[in-house]
Protein backbone atom coordinates (compact mmCIF):
# COMPACT_ATOMS: atom_id res chain seq x y z
CA UNK A 1 0.00 0.00 0.00
CA UNK A 2 1.59 3.28 -1.09
CA UNK A 3 1.75 6.52 0.87
CA UNK A 4 -0.56 8.11 -1.71
CA UNK A 5 -3.19 5.44 -1.05
CA UNK A 6 -2.94 6.00 2.68
CA UNK A 7 -3.25 9.77 2.22
CA UNK A 8 -6.29 9.34 -0.04
CA UNK A 9 -7.91 6.98 2.48
CA UNK A 10 -7.26 9.40 5.31
CA UNK A 11 -8.68 12.31 3.36
CA UNK A 12 -11.82 10.38 2.40
CA UNK A 13 -12.38 9.33 6.00
CA UNK A 14 -11.85 12.89 7.26
CA UNK A 15 -14.21 14.37 4.66
CA UNK A 16 -16.89 11.82 5.56
CA UNK A 17 -16.44 12.53 9.26
CA UNK A 18 -16.75 16.28 8.62
CA UNK A 19 -20.09 15.55 6.99
CA UNK A 20 -21.19 13.84 10.22
CA UNK A 21 -20.83 10.20 9.13
CA UNK A 22 -19.91 8.13 12.23
CA UNK A 23 -18.56 5.24 10.14
CA UNK A 24 -16.23 7.63 8.33
CA UNK A 25 -15.11 8.89 11.73
CA UNK A 26 -14.47 5.27 12.76
CA UNK A 27 -12.23 4.92 9.69
CA UNK A 28 -10.48 8.19 10.59
CA UNK A 29 -9.76 6.85 14.08
CA UNK A 30 -8.45 3.58 12.61
CA UNK A 31 -6.14 5.47 10.21
CA UNK A 32 -4.71 7.90 12.75
CA UNK A 33 -4.84 6.43 16.26
CA UNK A 34 -1.36 4.90 16.18
CA UNK A 35 0.33 8.22 15.40
CA UNK A 36 -1.83 10.04 17.95
CA UNK A 37 -1.00 7.39 20.56
CA UNK A 38 2.74 7.60 19.83
CA UNK A 39 2.67 11.36 20.18
CA UNK A 40 0.76 11.00 23.45
CA UNK A 41 3.28 8.41 24.69
CA UNK A 42 6.13 10.83 23.95
CA UNK A 43 4.33 13.65 25.76
CA UNK A 44 3.18 11.86 28.91
CA UNK A 45 5.74 9.01 29.21
CA UNK A 46 3.17 6.51 30.50
CA UNK A 47 1.29 3.96 28.38
CA UNK A 48 -2.03 4.05 30.24
CA UNK A 49 -1.99 7.83 30.35
CA UNK A 50 -1.16 7.91 26.63
CA UNK A 51 -4.19 5.68 25.92
CA UNK A 52 -6.38 8.04 27.96
CA UNK A 53 -5.01 11.04 26.07
CA UNK A 54 -5.70 9.29 22.76
CA UNK A 55 -9.29 8.49 23.73
CA UNK A 56 -9.94 12.03 24.97
CA UNK A 57 -8.46 13.38 21.73
CA UNK A 58 -11.13 11.61 19.66
CA UNK A 59 -13.90 12.61 22.05
CA UNK A 60 -12.91 16.26 21.56
CA UNK A 61 -12.37 15.77 17.81
CA UNK A 62 -15.82 14.31 17.18
CA UNK A 63 -17.38 17.04 19.32
CA UNK A 64 -15.86 19.73 17.12
CA UNK A 65 -15.47 17.90 13.81
CA UNK A 66 -17.00 20.93 12.07
CA UNK A 67 -13.82 22.87 12.90
CA UNK A 68 -11.77 20.59 10.62
CA UNK A 69 -11.65 22.68 7.44
CA UNK A 70 -9.52 20.43 5.26
CA UNK A 71 -9.61 16.63 5.30
CA UNK A 72 -5.97 16.52 4.12
CA UNK A 73 -4.93 18.31 7.33
CA UNK A 74 -6.77 15.85 9.61
CA UNK A 75 -3.69 14.22 11.16
CA UNK A 76 -2.08 17.54 12.10
CA UNK A 77 -5.42 18.74 13.50
CA UNK A 78 -5.81 15.59 15.62
CA UNK A 79 -2.23 15.85 16.88
CA UNK A 80 -2.81 19.48 17.87
CA UNK A 81 -5.84 18.36 19.91
CA UNK A 82 -3.74 15.55 21.46
CA UNK A 83 -1.05 18.05 22.51
CA UNK A 84 -3.72 20.21 24.16
CA UNK A 85 -5.27 17.21 25.92
CA UNK A 86 -1.86 16.11 27.22
CA UNK A 87 -1.09 19.61 28.50
CA UNK A 88 -4.51 19.90 30.15
CA UNK A 89 -4.09 16.55 31.87
CA UNK A 90 -0.61 17.41 33.06
CA UNK A 91 -2.08 20.44 34.79
CA UNK A 92 -4.82 18.33 36.39
CA UNK A 93 -4.73 17.22 40.01
CA UNK A 94 -4.74 13.54 38.99
CA UNK A 95 -1.51 13.82 37.02
CA UNK A 96 0.18 15.70 39.85
CA UNK A 97 -0.78 12.86 42.21
CA UNK A 98 -0.27 9.99 39.77
CA UNK A 99 3.24 10.85 38.51
CA UNK A 100 4.95 10.38 41.90
CA UNK A 101 2.91 7.21 42.51
CA UNK A 102 4.00 5.73 39.17
CA UNK A 103 7.62 6.66 39.89
CA UNK A 104 7.39 5.01 43.31
CA UNK A 105 5.86 1.88 41.75
CA UNK A 106 8.75 1.65 39.29
CA UNK A 107 11.22 2.03 42.15
CA UNK A 108 9.86 -1.00 44.00
CA UNK A 109 9.06 -3.15 40.94
CA UNK A 110 11.29 -6.24 41.02
CA UNK A 111 13.74 -6.40 38.15
CA UNK A 112 13.77 -9.56 36.05
CA UNK A 113 16.64 -11.94 36.66
CA UNK A 114 19.06 -11.11 33.89
CA UNK A 115 22.52 -12.34 33.11
CA UNK A 116 25.13 -9.72 33.97
CA UNK A 117 25.45 -8.46 30.41
CA UNK A 118 21.71 -7.95 30.03
CA UNK A 119 21.53 -6.26 33.41
CA UNK A 120 24.25 -3.84 32.40
CA UNK A 121 22.40 -3.13 29.16
CA UNK A 122 19.15 -2.59 31.07
CA UNK A 123 20.85 -0.21 33.47
CA UNK A 124 22.41 1.66 30.56
CA UNK A 125 18.94 1.89 28.99
CA UNK A 126 17.52 3.20 32.26
CA UNK A 127 20.28 5.82 32.44
CA UNK A 128 19.59 6.96 28.88
CA UNK A 129 15.84 7.16 29.48
CA UNK A 130 16.44 9.08 32.71
CA UNK A 131 18.69 11.50 30.83
CA UNK A 132 16.02 11.81 28.13
CA UNK A 133 13.39 12.63 30.75
CA UNK A 134 15.49 15.59 31.91
CA UNK A 135 15.70 17.23 28.49
CA UNK A 136 13.45 20.22 27.70
CA UNK A 137 10.08 19.06 26.38
CA UNK A 138 10.57 20.11 22.76
CA UNK A 139 13.81 18.12 22.60
CA UNK A 140 12.50 15.15 24.58
CA UNK A 141 9.37 14.76 22.48
CA UNK A 142 11.11 14.91 19.10
CA UNK A 143 13.73 12.41 20.25
CA UNK A 144 11.13 10.04 21.72
CA UNK A 145 9.05 10.18 18.53
CA UNK A 146 12.09 9.37 16.41
CA UNK A 147 14.09 6.88 18.49
CA UNK A 148 11.45 5.19 20.63
CA UNK A 149 8.28 5.44 18.57
CA UNK A 150 10.07 5.15 15.21
CA UNK A 151 8.20 7.92 13.36
CA UNK A 152 9.64 9.33 10.13
CA UNK A 153 10.66 13.00 9.87
CA UNK A 154 7.47 13.73 7.93
CA UNK A 155 5.30 12.02 10.54
CA UNK A 156 7.02 13.92 13.35
CA UNK A 157 6.53 17.19 11.47
CA UNK A 158 2.81 16.44 11.10
CA UNK A 159 2.49 15.37 14.74
CA UNK A 160 4.15 18.50 16.06
CA UNK A 161 2.82 20.93 13.48
CA UNK A 162 6.29 22.13 12.46
CA UNK A 163 8.30 22.02 9.20
CA UNK A 164 10.61 19.06 8.53
CA UNK A 165 13.60 21.43 8.81
CA UNK A 166 12.58 22.21 12.38
CA UNK A 167 12.38 18.49 13.13
CA UNK A 168 15.94 18.09 11.80
CA UNK A 169 17.35 20.93 13.87
CA UNK A 170 15.51 19.91 17.05
CA UNK A 171 16.64 16.31 16.65
CA UNK A 172 20.24 17.42 16.23
CA UNK A 173 20.12 19.62 19.34
CA UNK A 174 18.30 16.92 21.32
CA UNK A 175 20.87 14.26 20.45
CA UNK A 176 23.74 16.61 21.27
CA UNK A 177 22.13 17.47 24.62
CA UNK A 178 21.53 13.79 25.41
CA UNK A 179 25.14 12.90 24.56
CA UNK A 180 26.37 15.75 26.82
CA UNK A 181 24.20 14.53 29.70
CA UNK A 182 25.39 10.96 29.29
CA UNK A 183 29.02 12.11 29.13
CA UNK A 184 28.38 14.03 32.36
CA UNK A 185 26.94 10.91 33.99
CA UNK A 186 29.95 8.84 32.91
CA UNK A 187 32.32 11.42 34.40
CA UNK A 188 30.35 11.27 37.68
CA UNK A 189 30.57 7.46 37.74
CA UNK A 190 34.25 7.34 36.72
CA UNK A 191 35.34 10.36 38.68
Amino acid at each position, binding site marked *: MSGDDAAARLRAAADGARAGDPQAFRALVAETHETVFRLAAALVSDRDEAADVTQETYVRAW*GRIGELRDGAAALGWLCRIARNVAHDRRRSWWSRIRAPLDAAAREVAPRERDPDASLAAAERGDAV*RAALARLPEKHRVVLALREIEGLSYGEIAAALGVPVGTVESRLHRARAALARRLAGLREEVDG
Partner: protein
Amino acid sequence: MTCRDARTLFSARLDGRLGPDEARALDAHLAACAACRGELARWEAAAGALRAAGPTPVPPSLAERAFRAATRAERPAPVAGFLPAGRKAALAGALAAAAVWIAALATGAAPRPAPADAGQDPIEVAVLLWTAEGER
Protein backbone atom coordinates in the same frame (compact mmCIF):
# COMPACT_ATOMS: atom_id res chain seq x y z
CA MET B 1 36.32 19.54 7.51
CA THR B 2 36.57 20.82 11.09
CA CYS B 3 35.30 18.92 14.14
CA ARG B 4 32.48 21.45 14.40
CA ASP B 5 31.45 20.85 10.79
CA ALA B 6 31.65 17.09 11.28
CA ARG B 7 29.41 17.14 14.36
CA THR B 8 26.67 19.09 12.61
CA LEU B 9 26.30 15.99 10.39
CA PHE B 10 25.98 13.42 13.20
CA SER B 11 22.20 13.54 13.51
CA ALA B 12 21.64 13.15 9.77
CA ARG B 13 24.23 10.33 9.80
CA LEU B 14 22.26 8.43 12.44
CA ASP B 15 19.11 8.66 10.31
CA GLY B 16 20.88 7.82 7.04
CA ARG B 17 20.05 11.23 5.57
CA LEU B 18 23.52 12.29 4.40
CA GLY B 19 24.18 12.76 0.72
CA PRO B 20 27.10 10.76 -0.77
CA ASP B 21 29.50 13.75 -0.75
CA GLU B 22 28.73 14.64 2.87
CA ALA B 23 29.03 11.00 3.92
CA ARG B 24 32.46 10.69 2.26
CA ALA B 25 33.69 13.93 3.84
CA LEU B 26 32.48 12.85 7.28
CA ASP B 27 34.07 9.40 6.95
CA ALA B 28 37.38 11.01 5.99
CA HIS B 29 37.24 13.28 9.05
CA LEU B 30 36.29 10.42 11.39
CA ALA B 31 39.17 8.32 10.10
CA ALA B 32 41.57 11.04 11.25
CA CYS B 33 39.84 12.30 14.43
CA ALA B 34 39.55 10.11 17.54
CA ALA B 35 37.61 12.75 19.47
CA CYS B 36 34.84 12.87 16.87
CA ARG B 37 34.80 9.08 16.61
CA GLY B 38 34.23 8.94 20.38
CA GLU B 39 31.53 11.57 20.24
CA LEU B 40 29.70 9.81 17.40
CA ALA B 41 29.96 6.54 19.35
CA ARG B 42 28.20 8.23 22.29
CA TRP B 43 25.40 9.48 19.99
CA GLU B 44 25.01 5.98 18.52
CA ALA B 45 24.99 4.32 21.94
CA ALA B 46 22.30 6.69 23.21
CA ALA B 47 20.17 6.15 20.11
CA GLY B 48 20.65 2.39 20.41
CA ALA B 49 19.61 2.39 24.07
CA LEU B 50 16.47 4.38 23.28
CA ARG B 51 15.59 2.13 20.35
CA ALA B 52 16.28 -1.09 22.26
CA ALA B 53 12.96 -1.20 24.07
CA GLY B 54 11.05 -0.62 20.82
CA PRO B 55 7.98 1.54 20.39
CA THR B 56 5.34 1.72 23.11
CA PRO B 57 2.81 -1.02 22.23
CA VAL B 58 -0.51 0.41 21.08
CA PRO B 59 -3.31 -1.16 23.17
CA PRO B 60 -5.10 -3.56 20.78
CA SER B 61 -8.62 -2.24 21.37
CA LEU B 62 -7.68 1.44 21.54
CA ALA B 63 -9.19 2.53 18.21
CA GLU B 64 -12.56 0.94 18.92
CA ARG B 65 -12.57 2.21 22.53
CA ALA B 66 -11.77 5.76 21.39
CA PHE B 67 -14.42 5.62 18.66
CA ARG B 68 -17.11 4.39 21.05
CA ALA B 69 -16.23 6.96 23.72
CA ALA B 70 -16.31 9.75 21.14
CA THR B 71 -19.61 8.84 19.53
CA ARG B 72 -21.27 8.19 22.91
CA ALA B 73 -20.67 11.82 23.85
CA GLU B 74 -23.19 14.36 22.58
CA ARG B 75 -21.97 16.29 19.56
CA PRO B 76 -22.60 20.03 19.92
CA ALA B 77 -24.30 22.08 17.21
CA PRO B 78 -21.70 22.94 14.54
CA VAL B 79 -22.59 26.64 14.37
CA ALA B 80 -21.43 28.61 17.41
CA GLY B 81 -24.04 30.81 19.08
CA PHE B 82 -26.94 28.87 17.61
CA LEU B 83 -29.06 26.96 20.14
CA PRO B 84 -30.31 23.47 19.24
CA ALA B 85 -34.09 23.16 18.82
CA GLY B 86 -34.57 21.23 22.08
CA ARG B 87 -32.59 23.79 24.06
CA LYS B 88 -34.58 26.63 22.44
CA ALA B 89 -37.91 25.08 23.51
CA ALA B 90 -36.64 24.59 27.07
CA LEU B 91 -35.41 28.18 27.20
CA ALA B 92 -38.76 29.51 25.90
CA GLY B 93 -40.65 27.50 28.52
CA ALA B 94 -38.35 28.66 31.27
CA LEU B 95 -38.74 32.30 30.25
CA ALA B 96 -42.53 31.91 30.27
CA ALA B 97 -42.40 30.38 33.75
CA ALA B 98 -40.17 33.22 34.96
CA ALA B 99 -42.65 35.78 33.59
CA VAL B 100 -45.44 34.13 35.61
CA TRP B 101 -43.30 34.31 38.75
CA ILE B 102 -42.44 37.96 38.21
CA ALA B 103 -46.05 38.89 37.51
CA ALA B 104 -47.23 37.02 40.62
CA LEU B 105 -44.64 38.69 42.82
CA ALA B 106 -45.53 42.12 41.43
CA THR B 107 -49.22 41.62 42.22
CA GLY B 108 -48.52 40.08 45.60
CA ALA B 109 -50.07 36.77 44.60
CA ALA B 110 -47.02 34.62 44.94
CA PRO B 111 -47.60 31.19 43.43
CA ARG B 112 -47.39 28.06 45.51
CA PRO B 113 -43.97 26.41 45.64
CA ALA B 114 -43.25 25.01 42.21
CA PRO B 115 -43.07 21.26 41.85
CA ALA B 116 -39.71 19.76 40.91
CA ASP B 117 -40.30 20.33 37.22
CA ALA B 118 -37.36 21.46 35.15
CA GLY B 119 -38.23 24.52 33.13
CA GLN B 120 -40.42 26.16 35.78
CA ASP B 121 -37.80 26.84 38.42
CA PRO B 122 -36.22 30.35 38.32
CA ILE B 123 -32.86 28.77 39.16
CA GLU B 124 -33.25 26.56 36.08
CA VAL B 125 -34.05 29.73 34.13
CA ALA B 126 -30.83 31.33 35.33
CA VAL B 127 -28.84 28.20 34.48
CA LEU B 128 -30.33 28.01 31.00
CA LEU B 129 -29.69 31.70 30.35
CA TRP B 130 -26.14 31.35 31.61
CA THR B 131 -25.57 28.23 29.49
CA ALA B 132 -26.97 29.95 26.41
CA GLU B 133 -24.74 32.96 27.02
CA GLY B 134 -21.69 30.73 27.36
CA GLU B 135 -22.35 29.12 23.99
CA ARG B 136 -22.36 32.40 22.08
